[in-house]
């Protein structure tokens, strides 16, 4: 220990905040640095104790006595700043916990989604495989063909809605982006096109496809460029431009101009004059496509048009 006279002056505090004691220490025999270290430690401990005391003092308690109130206030003032710091720390810790748990949920979800899509694709390939076809034929006796065909169609629709796993992007395909995109498009759209009678408007196909791609959308220009490559790549679909400028995706095998023209001609013969709206309803196709089909029939010389202000 240090031997030194300690002259203490206790100045009485007039205001509670200024309550303090001044002590002068003189070290005649040295030891000031050790004392300084010991003092610092003691002060830190005291600060910690004051925080704890401040916490106790913070709890809302009605202080009936004014002096009691003053003392409590003094303690609070002393621990005020540290309380703020402590609160900030606590908030940050709580936020961290929330974030961690939140992201943990999301990770679990995406992991599950990947699994689901993988499973769906696996089932899809199984559906299309020859083994499955054989099985279907074998099972034909147990349930009606119509019912099983309906179920298969429904399942295909679910697959369409489910989306596409690992879509083609510029990053993944690079220079052959449009070719790869064309192949993916053809795969995806084949069913849809054949369901819609062999022809779909380009805009409808674009919307459907982008919806399936969900997060990595395709630019319209890229979409059209990919479609233009169908023929060159020997794929089953074609991009067709009608005289009016309308673009459509067609399956040449199922959509025949002559057939369409005949069909429209038959409508006119049975129903009399038909408008594009009528044709759209009869053919279950968009209005723009209905107009094109009427045009086809007109160019074939099977029908004539009636234009008026009505």
């Amino acid at each position, binding site marked *: 220990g240090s031997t030194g006279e300690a002259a203490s002056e206790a100045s009485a505090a007039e205001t509670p905040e200024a309550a303090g004691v001044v002590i002068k220490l003189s070290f005649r025999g040295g030891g000031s640095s050790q004392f300084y270290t010991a003092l610092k430690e003691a002060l830190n401990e005291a600060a910690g104790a004051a925080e704890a005391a401040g916490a106790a003092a913070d709890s809302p308690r009605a202080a009936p006595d004014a002096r009691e109130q003053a003392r409590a206030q003094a303690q609070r003032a002393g621990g005020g700043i540290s309380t703020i710091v402590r609160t900030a720390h606590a908030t940050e810790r709580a936020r961290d916990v929330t974030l961690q748990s939140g992201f943990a949920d999301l990770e679990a979800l995406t992991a599950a989604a990947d699994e689901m899509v993988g499973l769906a694709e696996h089932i899809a390939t199984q559906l299309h495989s020859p083994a499955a076809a054989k099985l279907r034929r074998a099972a034909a006796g147990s349930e009606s063909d119509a019912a099983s065909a309906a179920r298969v169609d429904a399942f295909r629709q679910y697959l369409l809605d489910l989306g596409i796993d690992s879509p083609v992007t510029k990053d993944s395909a690079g220079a052959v982006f449009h070719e790869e995109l064309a192949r993916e498009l053809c795969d995806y759209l084949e069913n849809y096109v054949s369901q819609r009678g062999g022809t779909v408007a380009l805009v409808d196909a674009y919307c459907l496809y982008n919806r399936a791609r969900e997060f990595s959308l395709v630019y319209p220009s890229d979409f059209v460029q990919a479609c233009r490559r169908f023929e060159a790549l020997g794929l089953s679909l074609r991009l067709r431009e009608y005289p009016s400028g309308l673009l459509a995706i067609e399956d040449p095998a199922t959509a025949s101009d002559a057939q369409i023209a005949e069909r429209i001609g038959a409508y006119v013969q049975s129903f009399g004059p038909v408008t594009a709206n009528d044709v759209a309803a009869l053919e279950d196709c968009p209005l723009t496509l209905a107009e094109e089909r009427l045009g086809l029939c*007109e160019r074939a010389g099977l029908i004539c048009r009636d234009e008026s202000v009505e």
Partner: protein
Amino acid sequence: MATGGGAGARFQLPEIHSFPPFFTRQPNEDTWKEQRRLWCDLVVAFCRHHRRSALAVAEAVNEPPFSNPRIRRALRVDTLREVVDELVSQGHAAWTGPKGSVRDTCLVFWRKPEVWAAMLHQWAADRGLCNTVLTLYELANGDDTADQEFHGLDYATLRRSLEALQSQGRAQLFAGSSDEDLGVKIFT
């Protein structure tokens, strides 16, 4: 042969006239050719019935036969122009009006000028009026021609017919102060 206008019998419009698309210029070329042919026949027949030759395209589309109020359809002006153009190429019409102006007024020859020319020549020869100067007025409205088909023919068509005769070398025209005064000498 009737010399008055078709006042007795009403002009019989063909069935196609009640077919609304008949009044729409068809984009399909083959269909249009057929449509145009039918319109040409209709125009000539109509003019023949009413012994009318002059046609103003812009006004004509507002009246029958180019408008059919019953089915609320009318031919468009440029479509009628196309029909008249076809008639001109067949020799059944001629555009009148100043050169270079928009084609609006025309003459429809429900009988070709060459045919009139032959009839005029025949009449002159029969009456022994060859080599005498006759006026248009005499030919169209004279008592001597009362029983002729060309009696009452409009001056424009009559003039063209005489011009045709002149170009065949069978007549000579002399300009007068007006169309009525126009003189012609028909040779034998």
